């Protein structure tokens, strides 16, 4: 793919992601917020594709829009009283949230500007799923097992909750 198409695609999906993110916080009806979140997550997946991380992109769609967003929407629709957001949060809360957002944004910008970015050493259209799998089961096998332990705990917790009720 040539530079121009790549750049155009980046701006289209980048813009979509930003619009989705803004809509997620700005929209008034909870379902709309959730749908904007779907847009943001799907656009992020498209950006991963442009970064030639095909496996991460596909898993992002499969897990986030495929499972998590559907569960989220399901839960939202089961709570009809909560569909309309309260008009405004208390002023103190708004101030604190703005402060946290500004600090976080500053940190991210600083990290992006000062980070030692590594240039690509492998061709960018190489498949990523096989190297990822090998890395997870050799170099990073301990963190990988740790994460599965966390999931197992979550599973057992869900079972316990379901049993008691």
């Amino acid at each position, binding site marked *: 793919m040539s530079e121009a198409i790549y750049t155009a695609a980046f701006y289209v999906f980048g813009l979509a992601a930003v619009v989705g993110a803004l809509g997620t916080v700005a929209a008034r009806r909870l379902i709309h917020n959730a749908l904007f979140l779907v847009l943001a997550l799907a656009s992020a997946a498209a950006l991963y594709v442009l970064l030639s991380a095909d*496996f991460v992109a596909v*898993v992002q769609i499969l897990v986030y829009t*495929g*499972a998590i967003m*559907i569960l989220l929407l399901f839960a939202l629709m089961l709570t009809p009283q909560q569909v309309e957001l309260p008009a405004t949060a208390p002023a103190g809360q708004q101030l604190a949230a703005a402060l946290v957002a500004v600090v976080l944004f500053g940190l991210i910008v600083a990290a992006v500007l000062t980070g030692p970015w590594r240039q690509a050493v492998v061709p960018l259209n190489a498949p990523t799923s096989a190297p990822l799998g090998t890395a997870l089961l050799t170099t990073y096998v301990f963190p990988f097992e740790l994460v599965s332990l966390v999931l197992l705990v979550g599973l057992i917790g869900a079972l316990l909750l379901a049993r008691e009720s």
Partner: protein
Amino acid sequence: MAVLNDLLSQVGGWLGGVLRALLGADLATIVFLVISAGVILTFLAACITLAIWAERKVIARIQDRVGPNRVGPFGLLQSVADVLKLFAKEDTIPGGADRLVFILAPLLAVVPSLMIYAVLPWNWDAVVARLDVGILYVLALATFPTLAILVAGWASYNKYTLLGGMRAAVQLISYEVPEVLAVLPVVVLAGSLSLWDIAAAQRAVWFILAPVVGPLAFLVFFIAGLAEINRSPFDLVEAESEIIAGFHMEYSGMRWALFFLAEYANAFTVSAIASVLFFGGWHGPLLPGYLWVVLKTALLFVVMVWIRGTLPRLRYDQLLALAWKGLLPVALVSLVLAVAVRELGAMSWHPLLLLGINLGVVYLLFRWYTDLWRAAQYRAAAPLLEAAMQGVRS
């Protein structure tokens, strides 16, 4: 035959050359992709028109009727007439509806369903996108129609549509798990996530012949696939006797037709992906590869229609019990067995031996199922028999 076999790549190569000469490399790539998409979508639309006719005919025969036979020879033009009618219908949007979401939902259903066809290998030399994570891409996009159904049900502002949407969500979340797990044995056997690699790996033996694993994984994949696309007997999302027409009750005209189109595109997707995963994709004697793909897909689609004509709709608890207590354990077992098959090198055994093993497996499954069914029948009939006997005795 050789000429016919690489017909698609020949035409594609020629067209690509012409476009590059006319437009330069960049623009030619884009135009070529757009043309490929157009050709595939046109072909798909024609297939769907034919499939609707075929489904109505087959269902009619199963129910001892004639089916559509008025418009055109054998009623072939019935679907065309129906589409024309849909174009002419009034486009209504309910008063309380969330207009934007209501309008966008059919598009959210249809576009991802059609995007799946970009990675389907039509022949060894004819794939639009030979994606390394092809099967995951298919599974990921296959979740969007459910999202669309859920959202459409909510946006219509009607309790029946909302119920339909809710059912779709629960159904997807439950059946997504066995669906993905049933694909994994094939991935283990082929050693790749790419649909092209998976089909190419079945050059000698189709994966349906993988001892024990093949039939089990295919069964789970096909059943879970049927559930995920809301086809009968899993069509609780639009169960007429309970929630009228479910999620699409408030839709009319072309908006409704888009949902219908997505539904049939999804039915084809499940058939086509099953034929690539388990039935060797383009591999087959005599005929060119792309014809084999179409033929296998069509046959699996007819099986779907057959199932629709035979089985009654499942009850809600049965639907969930089947996913979590039936398909999930079977899928897990077949995944473990797939690793064993790979380690034993069983795929290189003689095909007739593999066929024998699998016929045995299918027979045992059949026996087990009929025994189970009979036991259930006896259990259900026991109190009645008891009562009847008491009547006789006294």
